């Protein structure tokens, strides 16, 4: 851990501009992001990351609890006279991962992906197996020498990959690794230049960090709205936690915080958004037009840079479920640009993270009952 930090700081020293950003407190949320990124929370088995998050949010809000499906729901009450607009902020806390499906002779484990993991990135990864007690492992594959000539040019199919645990007896492993055990990649968070960070599960632990950052900002602001911050479960397997938590809370409006694709070579301009240029505000059928406009205007007022992400669908975010819960919930989508999505080196800008927290807090501060009523008038 220390090694990573010092390497990051070394780089920072040489760059005046980024040192300034550090004074802007972009790095304020680095430790939280690092902690959340390291926590285990594959879809459907989010207890560990939830526990960590409960502790983080507890001092910032009035109450925080987990619902029946495991969503973490933090409630911060609004001030002033009734009625209080009820706003839900949702960021999913689950991560993609692997699930053990079979224990083979020789101590190898077969697995199936949970969520849309990029199988090509798996060979050679170091992994943690979250059995009865955590085990280390590596993902192996047939060495190049033993491959047929044509084989090397193709990605290794998922059913030919396996985890090597170092144990050699099937029986031994059966004791420690029940079928269904989750596996995550073992990866420390890396600080890159210009306040960029790279690591695992930043989709969407970065969003969860924004949630915390927003509550942090709100402790300094007066707001009339009742705020429900929800860290949702099972987004990666079909926006399931958002579906039930939005039904349960029935808020007046919702803002979803997730990640979108960052710019990188080979990706079209309207598919990938530059890092460090602020959050991308979703625009399309899934977003209530007035919420989009209000977020945009708020960003302009408080000087938060923003980008516009037009999309015909919410492309698999919690917004998909929330907008059509119950009688319909006006929903907006705010995304952090992130490169290399669904790999173990997801990369994003800490500055975007911080600015997004600030934007959401200001947006919430401005929420009044009349605005909410207007959301059903077309």
């Amino acid at each position: 851990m220390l090694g990573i930090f010092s390497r990051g700081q070394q780089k920072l020293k040489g760059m005046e501009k980024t040192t300034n950003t550090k004074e802007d407190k972009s790095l304020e949320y680095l430790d939280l992001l690092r902690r959340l990124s390291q926590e285990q929370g594959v879809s459907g088995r989010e207890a560990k990351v939830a526990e960590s998050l409960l502790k983080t949010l507890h001092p910032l809000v009035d109450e925080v609890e987990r619902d029946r499906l495991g969503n973490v729901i933090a409630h911060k009450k609004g001030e002033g006279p009734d009625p209080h607009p009820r706003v839900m902020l949702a960021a999913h806390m689950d991560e993609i991962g692997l699930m053990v499906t079979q224990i083979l002779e020789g101590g190898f484990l077969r697995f199936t992906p949970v969520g849309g993991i990029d199988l090509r990135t798996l060979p050679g990864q170091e992994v943690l197996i979250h059995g009865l007690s955590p085990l280390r492992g590596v993902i192996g594959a047939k060495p190049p020498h033993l491959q047929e000539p044509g084989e090397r040019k193709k990605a290794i199919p998922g059913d030919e990959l396996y985890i090597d645990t170092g144990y050699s007896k099937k029986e031994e492993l059966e004791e420690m690794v029940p079928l269904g055990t989750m596996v995550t990649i073992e990866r420390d968070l890396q600080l890159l230049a210009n306040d960029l960070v790279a690591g695992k599960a930043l989709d969407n632990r970065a969003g969860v960090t924004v949630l915390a950052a927003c509550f942090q900002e709100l402790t300094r602001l007066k707001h009339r709205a009742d705020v429900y911050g929800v860290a949702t479960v099972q987004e990666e397997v079909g926006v399931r936690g958002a579906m039930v938590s939005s039904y349960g809370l029935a808020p007046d409006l919702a803002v979803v915080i997730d990640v979108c694709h960052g710019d990188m070579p080979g990706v079209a301009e309207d598919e990938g958004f530059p890092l460090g240029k602020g959050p991308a505000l979703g625009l399309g059928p899934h977003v209530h037009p007035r919420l989009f406009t209000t977020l945009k205007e708020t960003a302009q007022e408080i000087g938060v840079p923003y980008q516009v992400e037009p999309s015909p669908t919410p492309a698999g975010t919690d917004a998909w479920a929330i907008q059509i819960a119950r009688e319909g919930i006006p929903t907006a989508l705010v995304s952090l640009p992130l490169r290399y999505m669904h790999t173990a080196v997801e990369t994003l800008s800490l500055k975007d993270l911080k600015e997004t927290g600030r934007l959401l807090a200001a947006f919430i501060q401005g929420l009044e009952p009349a605005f909410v009523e207007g959301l059903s008038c077309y």
Partner: protein
Amino acid sequence: MKDTLARLSQSFGPSGREEEIRTQLTKELAALDKNLAIRTDALGNLIATKPGDEKRLLLAAHMDEIALLVTHIDDLGFLRFSPVGGHDPRLLLGARVIFANGTMGTIGREELKDKEDLKLDKLFIDIGASSRAEAEENCPIGSMAVFAPHFSTQGSRIMAKALDNRAGCTVLLEVIRNLPPVDYQIDFVFTVQEEVGLRGARTAAYQLQPHLAVAVDVTRTGDTPEAPVMAVELGKGPAIKVKDRSFISHPRVKDLLEETARSQDIPYQLEILERGGTDAGSIHLTREGIPTGVISIPTRYIHSPAEIIDYRDLKNAALLLCSFLQHKDLFSSL
């Protein structure tokens, strides 16, 4: 239990046209004489309620089966169809099917240049009619056909059509037969339209608002020659589901099921199904979310005219569910 399964599996119950199987199940429930309140809802789910205190448990098994829907009749009396649920054209070719009125048919195909061209729209049902009028009279457009009934046993193995999911229905009936005295309310639901998208379970769970649910269905196995990798076998006990495409088990409900099996010495397996879903997929996402588990009967050749299960798995599934009902921490630990 075997006789019940024989009756249920041979009953006619395509998705969306479950009248006959529902009538059969209603009869079976009446014969058990347990004073359950029985009703049918707007989509056709059959709901049998054992009253109790304010805590509610939902037990679900779908009663529908995959089928063929007649969509077109040609001048010579051949019937074209659309699949109702997941059909594999390779399994349909040559299969015998039956309509609600007892009309039998067999499935033929157009002459194909290439075996790869075997698609559902190259197949047709021949009921032996010699004209359009004759076919229309017996099997008008909109009528549905299912695999022809068949039931046989070999040792502990049972071969029949529609074990998916009359096996699950049989387990529910067996639980009702041996119903332990419990304080909470239990809603036994025989759901409709599972095979076309877990539909009945969704509206049933919505109206019943259970605190906890368990679905009973069938699952695939990996114990046949050159089978796809799957660590479930016939005869090794009911499977407790960890995950499928529609659902990841609630960790606590899965643990409760495992604890029950271990404490009662009931053999069980853990199931990770890479494709397919069950009613639990709908149920657990209803309203604020419902902690849900699944008990699966290992089944070979699912969605074929002849599915095979092991009778011991069926019995143990019923035993497991009965014991689970008596777990002392059922609601408190969720």
